[in-house]
């Protein structure tokens, strides 16, 4: 397959870029605006929960664990594999704080003990009999979404296809699962097919909700997102996000788009 990867990210208004808690990852490592060729591609977007400590760290850890896992690997197992590495992530953070002379405060201890939470959507694309189409395996936990556009039509919206279904209580992947079996009960998966010429859009919840609302109103939000150009023109995405936040159509939240043009 041949795919052109573009990623766009804007932090919540009022937050700094360092406070951005979404994450995205693609393998084989694409770099910015790079064409990827090969027999497989893995991509993921995660959204760290605002009320959790180290949510951005967990979102990054989840996306990189997902893209490193084999295609078709059960998402619940991938999340548990990421969770198994969480103590090391937290220990590194505590060490860095101690080194900086800023030990963990009492109000941080509960959150660190409870662990971090994030939503996740991920996709594996595999070559089929030809390199122009093949299996598309998608899995998700929570309200980060994948959209598939073909011939200027939205043909897949997963796992949510209704803009009214978003709220502040999505299913979340925990870094310290209290009941690991529950993860499997909440993970959803979809097996479909990609074709050359398709566009796949992976989005965190605010953008996904905006996208579905625009589509339901008869709009073509995929064209808007296609017109953004490349990472080098990220100003276009920031302007779109600012404009939509200002007119109330986009929730003020960290906003992430990972676009795969096939």
């Amino acid at each position, binding site marked *: 397959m041949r795919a052109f990867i573009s990623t766009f990210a804007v932090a919540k208004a009022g937050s700094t870029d360092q406070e951005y808690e979404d994450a995205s990852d693609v393998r084989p490592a694409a770099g910015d605006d790079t064409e990827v060729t090969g027999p497989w591609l893995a991509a993921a977007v995660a*959204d760290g*929960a605002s009320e959790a400590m180290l949510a951005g760290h967990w979102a990054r850890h989840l996306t990189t664990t997902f893209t490193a896992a084999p295609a078709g690997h059960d998402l619940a197992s991938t999340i548990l594999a990421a969770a198994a590495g969480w103590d090391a992530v937290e220990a590194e953070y505590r060490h860095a704080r101690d080194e900086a002379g800023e030990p963990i405060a009492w*109000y941080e201890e509960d*959150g660190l003990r409870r662990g971090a939470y994030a939503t996740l959507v991920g996709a594996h694309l595999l070559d089929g009999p030809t390199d122009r189409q093949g299996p598309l395996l998608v899995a998700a936990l929570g309200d980060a979404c994948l959209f598939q556009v073909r011939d200027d039509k939205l043909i897949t919206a997963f796992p949510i296809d209704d803009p009214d279904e978003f709220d502040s209580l999505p299913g*979340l992947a925990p870094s310290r699962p*209290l009941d690991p079996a529950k993860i499997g009960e909440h993970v959803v998966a979809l097996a479909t097919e990609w074709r050359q010429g398709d566009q796949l859009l992976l989005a965190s*919840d605010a953008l996904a909700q905006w996208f579905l609302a625009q589509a339901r109103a008869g709009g073509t939000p995929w064209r808007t997102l296609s017109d953004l150009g490349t990472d080098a023109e990220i100003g276009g995405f920031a302007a779109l996000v600012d404009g939509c936040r200002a007119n109330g159509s986009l929730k003020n939240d960290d906003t992430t788009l990972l676009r795969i043009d096939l």
Partner: protein
Amino acid sequence: MAYTAEISRSNPSCFIFLLDQSASMLDEITEGELVRRKADIVADALNRLLRELAIKCAKEGGVRDYFHVAVIGYGVRVGSLFEGELSGRDLVPLSQVAKYPARVEERMKKVPDGAGGLVEQPTKFPVWVEPVGNHGTPMVEALRQATVLANTFLATNENCFPPVVLNLTDGQSTDGDPRPAAEALRELASTDGNVLLFNLHVSSEGGKPTVFPGASADLNDEYARTLFSMSSPLPPHMRAYAAQQGIAVDDTSRGFVYNADMITIVQFLDIGTRATDLR
């Protein structure tokens, strides 16, 4: 739609706690085999509320100032209960409240052990207010001071999620009928809705603990009925969240609890995606 304003550092909200410190608060309540003074119960409730609020807003790098907080005591005098660095201050950004408790205790707390059980772990427990009880109950003056503070906050935060005022008391006002002062407080509003006045009532009269009762509530205590009538109706999203927590509510439910916990109100406030385990 009301009560939907974003709560953020650029659009913060505020919490004003009113703590009854009158002599009647030294009366004891029997809860099963446990006997506690009302003053101990409300001081503990307030310290836990402040702790939960700070933890809810804590991120790496500190507590975010999603809220400004005042703690007003009423008994011998009416005024701020903050001590030390915060002494004499009224509305204080939450990060400062978290940074400067009067002291920090270590208590044992039961936490999940990761294998379906619970294990006791030492936990730091900050203390901002101590149990106190003497003199009368100037609740009307306390509500007036809350009105001044809320008004001051609204003057510079007109689009905020409305200030929440939580009054912790046994209800026996000694400086007049508190209902008109409560009404004046509830009439203040941001563009997102009216100030919310909630009441946590501790009583030695006994009776069933009650959480967020509605019009049909059977409140046999005169003070409970007064405090219930002073309390704001729960906004729809708070009712929905209470229902998710298994609390029986209806569209007449008010922000009032009788001999019960109100720690849930911290969870009612929406600052983004909640960190909750899968169910």
